[in-house]
């Protein structure tokens, strides 16, 4: 363990305004172009010195948070997240919600597998006076009153922090790294360390926004500069948020890696002796170059091209559509098998996810990589509150991911794994396109009514919140794209990106921009898709009582209301169309005097991606259901015969 004195000296050195190890070259993000101002408010700046003991799975750390009150109110307390305490025992809110989501209560957490974070000391320097708050710390549960939850701690101050005032908070703490929960933790020699340090909440004009850790939501924090020194065993490779600025031998068997990054709101890192390092560069005619660093598992050697290609695709298309990636580097972490760390985003660093057998034609690797790289934009840069409005980053990003995959990687194919999940088989007959798979209707459909999207995300039913957050948003953004056209939607998203980069936007900010850029009042649309849990289901029937007259009946089976087109195709190649506001439960259109109808469709262009039943959107005068059913039941018959013969093994 690093002596406390040495740590204090190092922290003191880090606190010095002109420390010799400060980055020589400014980051792209350091100053907003042409303004001379930092891109972000930089009101929560961290200097951290942490030492990892892999065998004990502990992190001993000291940090100094320079925190400036950027709200318009004074505060008499400070609030901090202690995320690792979510896995201290099974009584935390996170564990209780996880049990609700899975329907199974987690057995007792073994001490060596538990996560915890214990503050040993907390001092606050305010207007030159230092006060020791260690004895005043109290756990609180602002969301559910769970007295056994220790993921938020409050520190009463001796004097209020006024708007614009800065305080320095020095904290000494110890974290026990859990066996992976929520994509952080350690297994074997693989450590992926996120949400690992005491982290200050966000003070807003209406008070502290410092939620407990919930099973189905993520994080929210202010922007700042992170200057972090990580003391790990010698020979262990480290990847972290930011750029490595220095590497020193802390002891014969220890190395300290110093990472610095401005204008980010979190810091995650990973270390392992097993990583292979690969580097590549993203270059583009109109976007800044980005150094890509990949930390690869040896058993995934050979997949680096796919990982880099996916990251490049995200940087390119997000950059072209929404705005440039502003940092100079990005770190791709390929997590170890069973680490549970796959598919997670942190500023300038993310985890991908692949398998030893990952044949070409599947899209899992590309999907997760593009998605997490895309989070650099929707989460990392446009930093909405993931506790309350998770759809603003996850939903926008799911939609964007599907668009990138469509541009760069589709068609991919349905695949399934066999024999313990190790052996994949790709079904080349089942192409997965954006419409079929990327918009995520199959998963949304199951939980479509579970919550209104406008409910704070942490209050979603834990078992289905993700579907409302990710899938429903992707579907309604796809619907908007069909309604307004891609160019208009792209401008909405790029305007949102431009205005709220390095800020904390709220849903109304997005809706306001959508109205402004589209030139339409889309409130009715957001009322339907965002502020309610209604589902959409339009159906059509064709009544032909006699030769000369037909009636098309269109029904609204769901509670959701959406204006729809109705198209009837007639013999002789003619076509008739109507527009229906979709409000009533049904409407009818007469076809007297026209040629005989061949087919009728409601929403024939599939504008309304949220329609949960597409089969009933059309009707044919010459149904092909029997032919289809014959074919597929005969195909299924082969499966059943093979099944009987396989189980015939026993006789």
């Amino acid at each position, binding site marked *: 363990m690093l002596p406390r004195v040495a740590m204090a000296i190092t922290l003191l050195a880090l606190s010095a305004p002109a420390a010799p190890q400060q980055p020589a070259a400014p980051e792209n993000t350091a100053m907003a172009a042409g303004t001379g101002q930092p891109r972000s408010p930089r009101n929560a700046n961290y200097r951290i010195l942490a030492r990892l003991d892999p065998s004990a799975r502990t992190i001993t750390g000291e940090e100094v948070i320079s925190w400036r009150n950027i709200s318009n109110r004074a505060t008499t307390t400070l609030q901090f997240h202690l995320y690792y305490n979510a896995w201290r025992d099974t009584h935390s809110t996170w564990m209780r919600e996880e049990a609700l989501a899975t329907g199974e209560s987690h057995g007792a957490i073994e001490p060596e597998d538990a996560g915890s974070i214990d503050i040993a000391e907390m001092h606050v320097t305010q207007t030159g006076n230092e006060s020791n708050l260690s004895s005043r710390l109290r756990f609180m549960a602002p969301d559910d009153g769970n007295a056994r939850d220790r993921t938020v701690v409050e520190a009463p101050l001796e004097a209020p922090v006024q708007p614009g005032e800065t305080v320095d908070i020095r904290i000494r703490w110890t974290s026990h790294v859990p066996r992976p929960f929520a994509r952080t933790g350690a297994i074997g020699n693989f450590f992926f360390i996120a949400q690992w340090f005491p982290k200050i909440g966000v003070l807003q004009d209406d008070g502290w926004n410092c939620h407990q850790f919930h099973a189905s939501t993520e994080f929210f924090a202010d922007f700042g500069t992170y200057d972090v020194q990580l003391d790990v065993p010698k020979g262990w490779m480290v990847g972290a948020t930011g750029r490595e600025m220095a590497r020193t031998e802390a002891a014969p068997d220890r190395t300290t890696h110093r990472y610095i990054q401005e204008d980010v709101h979190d810091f995650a890192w990973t270390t392992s002796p097993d990583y292979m390092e690969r580097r590549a560069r993203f270059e583009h005619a109109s976007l800044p170059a980005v150094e890509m660093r990949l930390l690869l598992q040896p058993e995934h050697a050979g997949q680096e091209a796919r990982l880099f290609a996916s990251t490049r695709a995200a940087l390119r298309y997000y950059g072209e559509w929404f705005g440039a990636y502003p940092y100079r580097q990005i770190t791709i972490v390929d997590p170890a098998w069973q680490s549970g760390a796959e598919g997670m985003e942190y500023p300038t660093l993310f985890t991908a996810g692949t398998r030893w057998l990952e044949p070409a034609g599947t899209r899992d690797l590309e999907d997760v990589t593009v998605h997490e790289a895309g989070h650099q934009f929707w989460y990392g840069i446009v930093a909405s509150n993931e506790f309350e409005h998770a759809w603003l980053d996850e939903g926008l990003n799911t939609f964007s991911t599907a668009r990138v995959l469509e541009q760069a990687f589709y068609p991919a194919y349905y695949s399934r794994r066999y024999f313990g999940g190790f*052996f994949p088989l790709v079904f080349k007959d089942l192409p997965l396109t954006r419409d079929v798979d990327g918009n995520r209707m199959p998963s949304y459909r199951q939980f479509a009514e579970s919550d209104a999207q406008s409910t704070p995300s942490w209050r979603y039913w834990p078992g289905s919140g993700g579907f409302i957050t990710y899938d429903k948003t992707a579907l309604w953004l796809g619907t908007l794209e069909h309604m307004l056209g891609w160019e208009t939607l792209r401008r909405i998203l790029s305007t949102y990106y431009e205005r709220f980069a390095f800020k904390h936007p709220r849903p109304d900010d997005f809706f306001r921009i959508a109205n402004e850029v589209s030139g339409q009042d889309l409130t009715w649309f957001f009322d339907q898709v965002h502020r309610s849990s209604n589902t959409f289901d339009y159906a059509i029937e064709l009544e032909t009582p006699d030769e000369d007259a037909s009636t098309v009946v269109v029904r609204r089976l769901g509670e959701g209301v959406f204006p729809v087109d109705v198209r009837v195709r007639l013999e002789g190649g003619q076509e008739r169309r109507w527009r229906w506001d979709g409000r009533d439960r049904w409407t009818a259109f007469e076809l007297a005097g026209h040629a005989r109808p061949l087919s009728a469709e409601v929403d024939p262009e599939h504008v309304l991606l949220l329609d949960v039943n597409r089969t009933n959107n059309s009707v044919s005068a010459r149904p092909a259901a029997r032919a289809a*059913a014959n074919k597929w039941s005969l195909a299924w018959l*082969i499966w*059943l015969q093979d099944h009987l013969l*396989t189980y*015939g093994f026993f006789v």
Partner: protein
Amino acid sequence: MTATTAFREGMRRTNGAPVLLAGMCILTLLLALPLALALRAMLEAHLGSSLVAEQVASRADYQWWQEFLFQAAGLGTTFVPSIIGFGAVLRNLDALLDNREMATTIAGVTTGWLLIWSFLSGGVIDRLARSRRTRAHHFFAAAGVHFWRFLRLGIVALLVYSFLFGWVHPWLFDDLFGRLTGDLTVERTALLIRLAGYVIFGAVLIFFNVVFDYARFRIVVEDRRSAIGAIAASWGFFRRHFARVIALYLLNGAAFAVLAAAYGLLSPGAPGAGVTMWIVLLLGQAYIVGRHYLKLVFYASQTSLLQSALAHADYTAAPAIEWPDSPAAESIANANPIGP
């Protein structure tokens, strides 16, 4: 007789019993067909008069498939994308090896198939052991005579297989595999452990499978009545001819692997429309016929190995069963004696 000779002899005997092969294929088809018709009705009802049916009729429509599965219950839930082409083979092997639960209707028809096959296997083994044509009444007489013996044997087998799949399998693949791989971070190593698990479990499974198989053959060939006695005799045979028995088993297993691989290579996957649809479906049925053929070869080759190792070379199935005339026929014969 070597394992290879026995395998060839098994093929020869099966080739000489085309009616048997056709009968087994028809039996499987007849058992499966009602469920296929039930599924067909579900699919047709769901598609109704929708235009979507046109796409579904011409290709695999994943979007519709998901929609169907969302509202499906019972049998309908087994209509999943992985039934397409070679996926069906892997899905079934995976279900067996990984001990997956079956839908109730599928479990029902599987149980029915196993019972009917148990009934018929007396006649099948008898036919293959004689290596000559037998009449239908002889076939069913043999099936009837051996059925109750097979049923008793089946109860013992059921207890053993229940123990293997109810206790050994979860212990091996959940508990032990979980413990051995719980802290592993390298998937390849875990895969090797999994494969080792399959080898161990497969060896135990094959051992009992062989013992029960040869017990069946001994019941038929030697007209044994005691299931326990047949198991003991089978075990004795297995011990004495261990290498040949295992070699023959593996040879049969290899034949199945070749058939499955050929289907995997040739299977065009999802049926399209028109002629290509029929080609795909016929290829699937050809594969199913192939499986039935190999099942009979499996029986015939093992039976011939057993027969070749018994006391004399011509040892064959129990004497043909001669049924006495019915009491009514006897009465008539006694009342009207014919001639001196």
